[in-house]
């Protein structure tokens, strides 16, 4: 398997990358770590006329704090975010979920924003963005805009990003004081695509739970502090709303069952972890 031919632009400034996207938007693809895009190119599921490499753009490689947001620019590799000092207290959900992103070897190359742009419904990083109500910062030659994760992901590997836009950064809200977080995933092997992945956040008066790998995009629900059968009923309703499908990896029924059981586990763990 070899990619079809393309031009390769090594952007040294953001403006250069944006110029290429403006001129050739529909024919161009942004490449960062390449861990999602290269398989698509090798299998010729994608045949762009030009690749724009953004890894050399100044400032794209550094994670920064902006108030309560952990801002991760487009050049930051997944392994770098996972290795961030204090991540387990700064945002426990990221510390719990990132080890499930691909393998040790692909996390060393793949970027946080690249996984976001790829928008695989079973991917952990989009799930975390939805669970935490994070934001995606888009940039084109014309303008800057910022979308909530729930607005950005619009379908299976489809997002609201326009052809002339690139993801400049994603922003994860840091841990809310006193809140608890939890993540669980079921896959055939660690590193495989999730059959179901669940993330939860519990505060003093609310539960938020997000589910990946079932619907065509990660979905989130918020509840008051439900317990017992009321919580079971809420999760059962959520499981059916996700409109699970049978596929080669799992039946719809197994997926619904995992939403009910993993959903309850992450919620209980998040409630326990509240400080």
């Amino acid at each position: 398997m070899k990619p079809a031919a393309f031009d390769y632009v090594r952007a040294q400034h953001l403006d250069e990358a944006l110029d290429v996207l403006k001129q050739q938007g529909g024919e161009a693809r942004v490449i960062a770590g390449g861990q999602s895009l290269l398989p698509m190119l090798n299998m010729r599921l994608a045949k762009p006329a030009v690749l724009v490499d953004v890894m050399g753009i100044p400032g794209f490689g550094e994670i920064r704090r902006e108030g309560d947001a952990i801002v991760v620019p487009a050049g930051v590799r997944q392994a770098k975010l996972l290795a961030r000092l204090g991540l387990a207290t700064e945002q426990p959900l990221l510390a719990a979920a990132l080890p499930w992103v691909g393998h040790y070897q692909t996390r060393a190359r793949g970027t946080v924003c690249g996984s976001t742009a790829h928008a695989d419904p079973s991917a952990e990083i989009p799930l975390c963005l939805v669970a935490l109500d994070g934001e995606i910062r888009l940039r084109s030659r014309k303008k800057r805009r910022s979308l909530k994760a729930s607005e950005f992901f619009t379908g299976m590997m489809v997002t609201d990003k326009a052809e002339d836009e690139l993801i400049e950064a994603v922003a994860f809200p840091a841990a809310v004081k006193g809140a608890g977080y939890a993540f669980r995933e079921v896959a055939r092997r660690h590193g495989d695509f999730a059959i179901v992945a669940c993330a939860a956040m519990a505060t003093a008066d609310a539960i938020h739970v997000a589910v990946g790998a079932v619907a065509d995009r990660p979905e989130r629900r918020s509840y008051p502090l439900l317990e017992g059968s009321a919580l079971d009923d809420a999760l059962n309703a959520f499981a059916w709303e996700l409109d699970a499908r049978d596929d080669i990896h799992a039946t719809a029924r197994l997926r619904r069952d995992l939403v009910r059981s993993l959903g309850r586990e992450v919620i209980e763990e998040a409630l326990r972890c509240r400080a």
Partner: protein
Amino acid sequence: MPRLTAGARHRVAFTLNGKPVSLDAEPRLLATDALRQQLGATGTHVGCEHGACGACTIQIDGEPARACLTLAVQLEGRDVRTVEGLAPAADRLSVLQATFRRHHALQCGFCTAGILISLDAFLRTSPNPDEQELREVVGGHLCRCTGYTAIVAAALDAAATLRGEPASSVNRDPVHV
């Protein structure tokens, strides 16, 4: 702004196992094919060509990378290490290679180059790994011969040796779980 056009070949220069190398590559040329076909470094194996099997794993600036998910042009200016660069001399094995041999951690050998490269990178940053961590690292590679048990045993042994622990204190038996 450097724009490398599709039909033409472009000079790419990098360091391979400590030596400067260069080659002419179309933008679409994969690092696997550049290493094997243009530079003759056939120690890096080509398996699935979509990042799943791990056979082609190399190190770029010390970090593991799937060569099949890397373009040759992305190697420009980088420090690349392949399995050919692990042994300290032509007639000597590295510590990790020696424990692989001792523990029978390979049979057909197709996956071995990639696994050695991954473990070499991992042991440099995690000198005292537990079995679970090592299983996760080798989980990024498909090996259909060994069942992984001997690979994990070899990696634990290599880690102990690299920490300077005397050979006698090392459990040489395969770990059964």
